């Protein structure tokens, strides 16, 4: 009797709560594409944005979501193209004149003129030290639609730096957290780290915007993104998990786009290591890298073997001799470098077996696997590689010298220009020169590049520099991981941009 009382008390209570919970089920996620007159699309991105301010957002959401635009953009061929500035010129690479496009308004309704652009750039310079460092602006002068900028030194790649989304032009007279840009979409609401809601900009300067609404959502978990796509919470999903690609491809209502990104996974050699500072040793070691296995096996086919730092279609990428995984060539290379090879095993000239420490990190899951593959191949030659995983690779490489090799990954030509990577990774003072590379000939080439204005000459110089990097094997470039995007078949005019700067565009449409 005593116990029955409890049943009387609890069972109905629990059932009541369950019924209440189930009774009012929500309308399932609204179908992404509504009626034609009310076209909308939802894009699910893989990195969350804590802010929508284009001048400080490291995720560039305002530009990616078509809210704000820069003076210059890179097109699908990674060439510079006019955007808010329709013309520009400089004779000396230091004094620049831009003609700001007429007839463009901010979402606030205010006209875009040189003064508004000046105010926006000044705000970006004040707010974002990285923009300040990148642009080297000494002063800006505005007159009608003419904007004159002087850099603090001859800086020919200035124009390509203006492609950077953190230089996007916004109306600085608008206060509040939501930016007033010039893009095809206006922000209606933004929840940091969760979602951005957008409406069509009816007064867009560049013609009709096909979609009435758009939503830009964030989820950093690949499996959750995949499930959200399956649940039709999103119409376009950025970087679904690689293991789900076959499943997606099997679905006739899904389209999968996959193309090489501007990112390159690399193997950095520490030039302070007595063995690795020799070109012949680095070249021999390069033969131990099985790029095809990395691209097809470790990257599940979603990668392109890298021959150099940049994608082959860049004008500053030389015609490479395809690098092959070849243990015998590696042995031969070590022999020519003065190392002894006995029973297929390599030993240093003093008879000691080679022992190297390879650093890797977890935030790019394929890098530890690539490290293991290199370790296994090196073992075939009797070279011992000790793999060490570090938490923050940049911090570690910058502060320590107790390593010989390191896997690394970076976007090498984010704005279609070679100078960023060449300066950062090969100049003695470059912040990404973790291997302490110092090749005077290369330094002088890059210095010359930094003062050359003519684009053709710049490309020639960059090409020379990249050729030298290849000849000297200053780094081993492993693979260009692909950008993978899945979207529903009712989404039209989706373009997977290699720069990853432009996602929601005026042409994007749904059935």
């Amino acid at each position: 009797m005593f116990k029955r009382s409890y049943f009387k008390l609890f069972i109905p209570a629990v059932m009541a709560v369950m019924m209440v919970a189930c009774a009012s089920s929500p309308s399932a996620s609204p179908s992404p594409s509504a009626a034609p007159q009310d076209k909308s699309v939802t894009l699910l991105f893989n990195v969350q944005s804590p802010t929508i301010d284009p001048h400080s957002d490291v995720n560039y959401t305002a530009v990616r979501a078509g809210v704000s635009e820069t003076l210059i953009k890179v097109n699908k061929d990674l060439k510079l193209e006019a955007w808010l500035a329709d013309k520009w010129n400089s004779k000396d690479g230091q004094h620049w004149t831009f003609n700001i496009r007429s007839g463009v308004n901010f979402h606030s309704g205010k006209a875009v003129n040189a003064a508004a652009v000046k105010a926006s750039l000044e705000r970006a310079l004040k707010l974002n030290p990285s923009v300040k460092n990148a642009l080297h602006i000494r002063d800006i002068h505005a007159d009608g639609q003419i904007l004159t900028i002087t850099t603090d030194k001859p800086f020919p790649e200035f124009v390509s730096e203006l492609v950077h989304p953190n230089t996007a032009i916004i109306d600085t007279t608008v206060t509040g957290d939501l930016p007033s840009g010039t893009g095809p979409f206006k922000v209606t609401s933004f929840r940091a780290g969760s979602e951005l809601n957008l409406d069509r900009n009816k007064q867009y300067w560049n013609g009709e915007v096909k979609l009435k609404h758009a939503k830009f959502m964030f989820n950093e978990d690949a499996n959750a993104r995949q499930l959200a796509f399956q649940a039709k919470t999103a119409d376009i999903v950025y970087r679904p998990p690689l293991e789900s690609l076959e499943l997606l491809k099997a679905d006739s209502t899904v389209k999968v786009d996959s193309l090489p990104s501007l990112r390159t996974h690399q193997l950095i050699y520490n030039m302070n290591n007595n063995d690795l500072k020799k070109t012949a040793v680095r070249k021999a070691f390069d033969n131990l890298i099985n790029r095809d296995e990395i691209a097809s096996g470790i990257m599940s086919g979603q990668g392109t073997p890298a021959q150099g730092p940049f994608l082959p279609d860049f004008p500053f990428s030389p015609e490479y001799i395809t690098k092959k995984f070849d243990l015998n060539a590696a042995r031969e290379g070590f022999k020519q470098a003065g190392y002894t090879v006995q029973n297929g095993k390599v030993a240093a000239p003093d008879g000691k077996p080679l022992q190297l420490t390879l650093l890797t990190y977890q935030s790019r899951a394929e890098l530890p696997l690539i490290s293991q593959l290199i370790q296994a191949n090196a073992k075939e030659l009797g070279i011992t590689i000790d793999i060490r995983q570090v938490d923050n690779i940049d911090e570690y490489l910058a502060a320590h010298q107790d390593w010989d090799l390191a896997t690394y990954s970076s976007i090498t030509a984010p704005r279609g220009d070679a100078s960023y990577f060449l300066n950062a990774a090969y100049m003695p003072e470059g912040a990404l020169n973790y291997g302490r590379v110092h090749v005077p000939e290369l330094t002088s080439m890059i210095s010359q590049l930094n003062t050359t204005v003519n684009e053709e000459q710049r490309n020639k110089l960059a090409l020379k520099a990249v050729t030298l990097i290849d000849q000297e094997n200053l780094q081993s470039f492993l693979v260009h991981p692909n950008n993978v995007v899945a979207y529903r078949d009712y989404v039209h005019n989706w373009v997977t941009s290699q720069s990853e700067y432009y996602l929601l565009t005026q042409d994007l449409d749904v059935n």
Partner: protein
Amino acid sequence: MFKSMAKKFLELVLFFLILSFVSFCLLKLVPGDPVRSILRVDDVAVSNQQITDMRSQLGLDQPLPVQYGKWLVQLLQFDFGQSYLTHRPVFTEFMEKLPYTLLLTGGSLFIMLLIALPLGTMAALYRNRWIDSASRVFALIGSSIPSFWLGLLFIEWFAVKLRILPSMGEGTAFHLVLPSLTLGLAMAAVYVRMIRASLIESSGQDFIKAAQARGISPIRIFFRHMLRHSLVPLITVFSESIGSLLGGTVVIEVLFAYPGLGKWIVDAIAARDYPIIQGYTVFMAVFIVCINILVELSYRWVNPEIALKEKRLS
């Protein structure tokens, strides 16, 4: 009364000073700083000299006591500083995230109580019967399943297959269901066995037997005596659960794209965004202290004997 309050206040001030200084020191002892993140070395050509200049500009090259002193002076003016990366006030960002975390905490605790209280009670009352075995199995499975996997499973069932709940995001009460269920179930697995053990311990007490002998109704005995007596150890653990939930549940927040404090602080730690980390430490310390005070007060209500003992001692 005033004296004891003043003493308590001084204790709290001292506690905050020690806590903030220790956390400040620990933070600076960790290798690396935010400069590389601020300057975006992975995206913009930066020289080592520029890194050094930036470090100096932020005062990161100054002695630790100087850095701490500056931060403390700012704090005394209720200025928690600005995030190095977003350039927004730390307090504003914290207040944006807090409601989401509070909602998630509340939702998870509600689910936990909904499951653990009846199941734990039944397991205690029907010891060694099927319901007790079922609760044991539930506790075992619930505490073994990784929460991220459970979350994915729920998304698969409720969002993909049944289409009755949103898979991610926030905005409505329905967005809260799956993350709360994921967290609540994992917690319930722990609490079921604790409630059971606590109730069994209470049911053997002399005052329960005396109440039964006096003919008091079972429901009254349960609520007025048994449950109340069992609550003391449970409240202690409960307060710890609230603390850890308020601290954020990163995995769940990432999985459901839920913009709470957990992801916010983890990102800040990864980027060495010192103002956010320090601000968060202070905020959470305040929260935990408040929760502990409430817990202490609740002990007196749950078990009047505690208050009586204190009275006798004073």
